[in-house]
């Protein structure tokens, strides 16, 4: 196996081969969401750089929140050249380990690591995404595809992060279809497919024909419900999140499109810079449409030509700044006011 981690301190000696690692949250590396995406980034980096999976790139899974810190610490002490904490839940653990080991290089997804004075920590790369931008685009697709003029949004836990998805989506729908009704509900959990299914059932029964789910495994319930409906002859759609969820919609083919969040790409980029000795410590990297960090899924077979055209139009406007996609409820209100 790899080193026994007996070395203390954080003297990141460069004699050993380059190593990059990630600490997953309780979902593990196959959560069909960002843990998995991150791991795919590391794996493809390994492939391109002849590193061995399991030693050169490696992950440690946490089984509870209190494991984050020891897992991060273990990797740092095993002299990994860069260690990622996946998810904003690990923010404070990453900050603490970074402060204790100033020479170690860490990365954090979906959060900005700061010190006590709210200054970015010099040895942490903070990777965030403009989910609102990608969500806006799938909102455009939804707004143009709905036949009932009713669409739904299912969120995991109601918080700043998922609000970006919600408001971006709503803004996109309204941009192309101002009259559309948008139902919004949060399940209160990222791992409650039963609740996801129940919410989807409510939305579909109320007449929605497209639901965008930004709810992790809770979204699986949305898929189940959509498939059931479709099988019994009422065609409805789901919009996936994080990855291209086209396959999960099969065989009933209920995935309209997905909002992809390229955690893999970001991780790959940062790891590459780290290997080249240009670790972007202290920087806040924002991955938006411009960086291809978010966007709509490559599978577009269910999306109409018209919608695709609209998407590329809006994409340009967002990138050139002529449209600012709202992230919070307040911004969304202002955005709506401006639309009129």
């Amino acid at each position, binding site marked *: 196996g790899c080193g026994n981690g007996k070395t203390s301190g954080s003297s990141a000696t460069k004699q050993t081969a380059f190593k990059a690692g990630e600490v997953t949250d309780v979902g*593990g590396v196959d959560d069909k969401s960002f843990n998995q995406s991150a791991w795919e980034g590391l794996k493809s980096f390994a492939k391109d750089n002849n590193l061995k999976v399991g030693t050169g790139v490696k992950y440690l899974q946490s*089984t509870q929140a209190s494991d984050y810190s020891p897992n991060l610490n273990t990797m740092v002490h095993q002299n990994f050249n860069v260690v990622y904490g996946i998810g904003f839940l690990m923010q404070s653990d990453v900050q603490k380990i970074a402060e204790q080991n100033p020479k170690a290089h860490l990365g954090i997804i979906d959060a900005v690591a700061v010190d006590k004075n709210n200054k970015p920590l010099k040895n942490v790369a903070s990777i965030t995404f403009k989910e609102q931008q990608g969500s806006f685009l799938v909102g455009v697709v939804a707004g143009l595809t709905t036949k009932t003029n009713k669409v739904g949004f299912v969120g995991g836990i109601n918080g700043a992060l998922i609000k970006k998805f919600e408001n971006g989506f709503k803004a996109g729908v309204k941009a192309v279809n101002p009259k559309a009704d948008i139902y919004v509900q949060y399940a209160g959990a990222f791992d409650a*497919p039963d609740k996801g*299914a129940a919410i989807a*059932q*409510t939305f579909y029964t*109320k007449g929605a024909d497209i639901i965008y789910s930004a709810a992790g495994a809770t979204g*699986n319930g949305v*898929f189940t419900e959509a498939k059931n409906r479709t099988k019994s002859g009422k065609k409805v759609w789901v919009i996936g999140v994080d990855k291209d969820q086209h396959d999960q919609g099969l065989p009933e083919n209920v995935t309209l499109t997905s909002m992809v969040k390229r955690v893999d790409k970001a991780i790959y980029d940062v790891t590459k810079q780290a290997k080249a000795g240009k670790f972007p410590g202290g920087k806040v990297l924002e991955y938006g449409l411009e960086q291809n960090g978010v966007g709509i899924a490559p599978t577009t077979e269910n999306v109409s030509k018209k919608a695709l055209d609209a998407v590329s139009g809006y994409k340009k406007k967002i990138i050139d700044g002529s449209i600012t996609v709202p992230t919070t409820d307040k911004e969304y209100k202002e955005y709506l006011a401006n639309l009129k």
Partner: protein
Amino acid sequence: MSIFEVLTIIIPSTLLTAAPLIFTSLGGVFSERSGVVNIGLEGLMSVGAFTAAISTLALEHSGFGDASPWIAILIAAIAGGLFSLIHAVVSISFRADQTVSGVALNFLAAGLTIFLVKMIYEGKGQTPYITHNIDKISIPGLSKIPFIGPIFFQQVTYTSYLAILVSVLVWFIIFKTPFGLRLRSVGEHPAAADTLGINVSRMRYIGVALSGVFGGIGGAVYLVTITSNYSVSTIAGQGFLALAALVFGKWHPIGAMGASLFFGFAQALSITSQQIPYLDRLPSVIMLTAPYVLTLIVLTGFVGRAEAPKADGVPYIKGQR
């Protein structure tokens, strides 16, 4: 939304959520009626769900198509039954405290299932998704009945009706057959049963094994109708809820079914209410906690005192006074 529309959402959703709870709590009825407390229902559901996931995947892979989830439920029943034998051996033959054994059973199931998933799927922490679920359907004919049809017979799964039918069957077995009489006698007064030549240990083994079978079915139904894949968070508290339903239902099969339906209803309401005018103004926390608060309120007033079988939880040691 009109009341009618609300009902067409809430009732089917109630039935869907309740089915796994019904099966599992019926399992609890068997075990506890025979005098063995079963805190391990949660673990038995995990085993059932896990087994259902891997066997549905294997079956659909070998071309069993829509029959896959149904066969998987049967396999899960067997797996649950076998797994529950650990509880039986430890708590009946080895005279362990039944609570201790049940708690250990939950731990073992949680660890073992994920461990096995990792072994089977090369390190992954969860199974792939099954493609052949047991679907929500409209029951031909019945769903056409005006008013009643759309509420009770549309967007439902056969498993929900099966669960209700099985509760009646279990009631029949427990209260109308010699087997049931003996099972209950062992849970009430094992020494008395013993003097009448009833093999106490054997009856209790059967009770526990049946709880495994039903718990396994409960977990499997949850998987093939609701979640579609197995991970750590698939079974997260449903077993404890089934346990609560069992006590709430006063250790009676029909009571357990009623309590399960009540839990299902409360949960469906908590979700749907956010789309119902006026109810949507309530802070979400009120609706989210409603099922649990309501249960507490109901237990304080209306259903009266729940009394467990007299020898529930008491190991039987032959010849001991």
